[in-house]
């Protein structure tokens, strides 16, 4: 079983954290810090598995991680999971993110933390692997964004109207506004 999925950057700032077993909030933060501490001091070409920290359950649990540019992806799993299988799962997760965000980078995870969760939800459920086939995962995500778009089209209008009013950068916007052609006076009838 997967106990937690953690993504943090090279400085230990959490970017995604998902626990499949309940921990109090402060323990969650401690686990992230402890995991970062364990993982970050390792060289890049050592092995991708290590024993978990004490907070998450000690030597019964494994941390399986991959380091991509500025981000660490860490899965904490118990002994019933195949280490190499999970390593590949991380790869599938990252490839999926990459497809969804087009060259995913840390900023994408920051600004779309909800979307990242939705993608993860399509892969892992209740700590077990739900789907591993990237095409299938992408289809479902696409389905969701279609619904999102259609909903935004009809009912999202008021919301967007409000945010448009709140636009602060008005001078710039005005420059770009194209005035509509006025109706020809000749056609007016009084």
């Amino acid at each position, binding site marked *: 079983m997967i106990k937690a999925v953690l993504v943090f950057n090279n400085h230990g700032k959490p970017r995604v954290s998902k626990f499949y077993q309940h921990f109090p909030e402060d323990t969650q933060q401690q686990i992230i810090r402890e995991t970062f501490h364990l993982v970050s001091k390792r060289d890049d070409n050592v092995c991708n598995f290590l*024993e978990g920290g004490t907070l998450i359950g000690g030597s019964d649990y494994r941390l399986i991680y991959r380091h991509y540019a500025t981000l660490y992806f860490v899965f904490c799993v118990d002994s019933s999971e195949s280490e190499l299988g999970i390593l590949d799962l991380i790869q599938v997760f990252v490839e999926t993110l990459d497809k969804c965000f087009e060259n995913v980078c840390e900023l994408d995870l920051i600004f*779309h933390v909800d979307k990242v969760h939705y993608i993860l939800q399509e892969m892992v459920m209740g700590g077990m692997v739900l789907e591993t086939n990237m095409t299938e995962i992408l289809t479902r995500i696409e389905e969701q964004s279609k619904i999102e778009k259609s909903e935004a089209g009809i009912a999202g209008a008021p919301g967007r109207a409000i945010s448009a009013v709140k636009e602060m950068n008005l001078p710039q916007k005005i420059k770009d506004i194209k005035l509509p052609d006025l109706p020809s006076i000749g056609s007016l009838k009084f």
Partner: protein
Amino acid sequence: MPAVKGDGMRGLAVFISDIRNCKSREAEIKRINKELANIRSKFKGDKTLDGYQKKKYVCKLLFIFLLGHDIDFGHMEAVNLLSSNKYTEKQIGYLFISVLVSASSDLMKLVVQSIKNDIVSRNPVHVCLALQCIANIGSRDMAEAFNRDIPKLLVSGDTIDSVKQSAALCLLRLLRTAPDLIQLGEWASRVIHLLNDQHMGVVTAAASLIEALVKRSPEEYKGCVSLAVSRLSRIVTSSYTDLQDYTYYFVPAPWLSVKLLRLLQNYPPPEDPAVRTRLTECLETILNKAQEPPKSKKVQHSNAKNAVLFEAINLIIHMDSDPNLLVRACNQLGQFLSHRETNLRYLALESMCLLATSEFSHEAVKKHQETVINALKTERDVSVRQRAVDLLYAMCDRTNAEDIVAEMLTYLETADYSIREEMVLKVAILAEKYAVDYTWYVDTILNLIRLAGDYVSEEVWYRVIQIVINRDDVQGYAAKTVFEALQAPACHENMVKVGGYILGEFGNLIAGDHRSSPIVQFQLLHSKYHLCIPSTRGLLLSTYVKFINLFPEIKAQIQEILRNDNNIRNPDVEIQQRAIEYLQLTSVTSTDVLATVLEEMPPFPERESSILAKLKKKKPGAAEDPDAAGGKSSPPTVASKPMPEISVNASYQPQGASGGSADLLGLSSSAPPAAAPASNDTGCLVDVFDMLGTGASPTSNGLTAAADENYKSATTPDLEAGPDKIHEFVCRNNGVIFENDLLQIGIKSEYKQNLGRVGMFYGNKTSVPFSNFTAEVSLPGELSSQLMAQAKPVDSQVEAGAQKQQLVNIECVTDFTVPPVLVINFLYNGAQQHMTVKMPVMVNKFLEPAEMDAATFFQRWKNLSAPAQECQKIFKAKPPMDGEQTKSKLLCFGLSILEDVDPNPENFVSAGVLHTRNQQIGVLLRLEPNSQAQMYRLTIRASKDAISTTLCELLESQF
């Protein structure tokens, strides 16, 4: 195609940018507090928020939570979002709930209500959201609410694949939370048949669910074995184009293969020969594929391929039945040991640990010893080195123990701090377990202290002292070695402790050499005294007072030290009290009393090493007894093996009551021999206290010599170690031979000549039935040719509170030394239990008494005078030395009591015949008690070589 980028929420983006631009932690907190206040006011405000705004604020809260701030509001708004009919709002509501709301929250009732609506929705994406939420929270309430709906969704023909997938995992989550509430009943077989589903995603999810169900009730789901094998076979033999999207970098469905291989590890090898053959073919194919050239250079390809391969090897090890596959697996792992991928080396070391426990492959694993040792030296990654240490520990046996221990000691000098303590324990255990020559053992442990003294826990140095005290052949050597070790200018405190204790007991053995004369020993120890912590000083004071007994000639110097203000007025109460008491004791009492009080420590009762218990506690599972072949699934409750022959002359004491209370000092509840004379002299000791007038309680003084602070903390309570009760059955045929929380085993037996009939009784002490119960008699090693044992099968089900009987017929072919072993396996609450218990079938059971007159006895006694025919032992008695009891013990042992043979009426003379299939062996015995010294001398002569020794050892344990 950017699937998820689109118009996001501008307010959210601005907020996140603000946070990212914060220069300091304080600024960040300030900005967050401002935002929290803003959101709070929005939520509390009069204006109703629309879905979009709620969604935006909930997103902000999620982000704030991720940064590590507590979120104590917004929950209600999130719950409201659940009932929105817009998917995106529902989605964010569920996300918030699953990240932030715990199962115990008051809002759960409302959440459950929303889920109820969504789970019956006709829109599958809504159903999936609801299932996700159940799987994330998985509370008991949810199990109660949905234990009917979800199984229905899972097996219904109308459900679409993605919902089925989610339903399977959702059910699995509820099964974990509330196993009692999830009963599939007649749907069980339909769930099993999901393994045949067309959609691979459904099969993957179902395989996880089925594995959990199998763990709960293996019998009910037995049908999954053949389905899993055929599914696996279809995947393994397919080409990578067949499975299209489920092919991952040219490997067909690697995750599903891994799941199926795991599932099969819950069962013994399939009984149906066709299924078995098919499975063997699969495993062979997987092993073959490993040898093929890779289809891609990408690391993902080799990862996926090897994930399947390692799982296949795990299954091969689990089945532990096909030597051919086991050896192939071992060779494959051997290749990986020198692979350039660190991950593979790591996994290979780990899997080999399991292989080393199989009797078929133990030897094959040993071939890689050099590579493993090399890994210890050259691996750059500490996790890999740790695995190498584990493997060396697992592959160690009598033949390679010296090499492996030497290598581990070398490595210890440079080992990482994080694994030193565990290594020390492992070295200590191996050294003890495989010591042929105990001087090697002593050297090893002293080396350990020298190299890694800080990591040598109390258990380790207590143990070396116990062993030295119990083995008189090593005492002189130990004294000499510690004396030399103490001469180093800086030696570790633990060395001082061991040295102090051993010289206090056995310093006299090396006092003949002028280089280690009494005064030199004393001065050497005392040179360390002032550098030590108080508890060590206390121990050294006890050593000094023992020196007064051993070496009266240095009494004056020692008394001088005791009288020193640093001791007699030491602020540490313990030191002060010892100094005062020892000083008085040595000044007031006669040498006789002194000699009795300060006598050499009696041997320790035989018991499992507390070091092993400590290692088990530290690493459950990893500390398997390296000898226990195939013991990989044995849970910690199993009766552990007693440590081998550490105390040949240790008088056996039942340990039931005192097993936990540590006694380096032998202060167990049954008074050890040396304590007895001491207590006879209490009158005298009380006088000493009267004179002191300190009012010190005699129970807490240090007069039993040596560090009594030790017995407060000496050994960790060792609940797992079932005491080896076999010695209680040398003179008894009926009784309880084993008992733990689950199981009680009783025995009733009768013997006639060389035949025996043994009834074994297995009682289930729990309220749950045991299933798959098997009990087999194993005749290890030589015993298989010495004894015939035929066990009738026993019912595979043992109901709660019930007792099952098993009859075992035994024939003694020729004489033997080790007893047969009962191997018991069963499933308790779905967990595999494995235990081994020694059967109390000893060679003396086949003895029958013989009568003869004095003349015949002496005639035969004289005829049996070859050295190999006789065995003599002199040993301390366990009080009381009662003549009648002795007689009945000899009779029960299987011998006669011959009256008027020995001129000394105190002595016992007996005779008997040992019946074996091949021959009858005459046995003569003489037992001479010496009640003054509380000693026995036992002599046995037998007409066949070596038998006398076996019988002597058996009988000795009874006195």
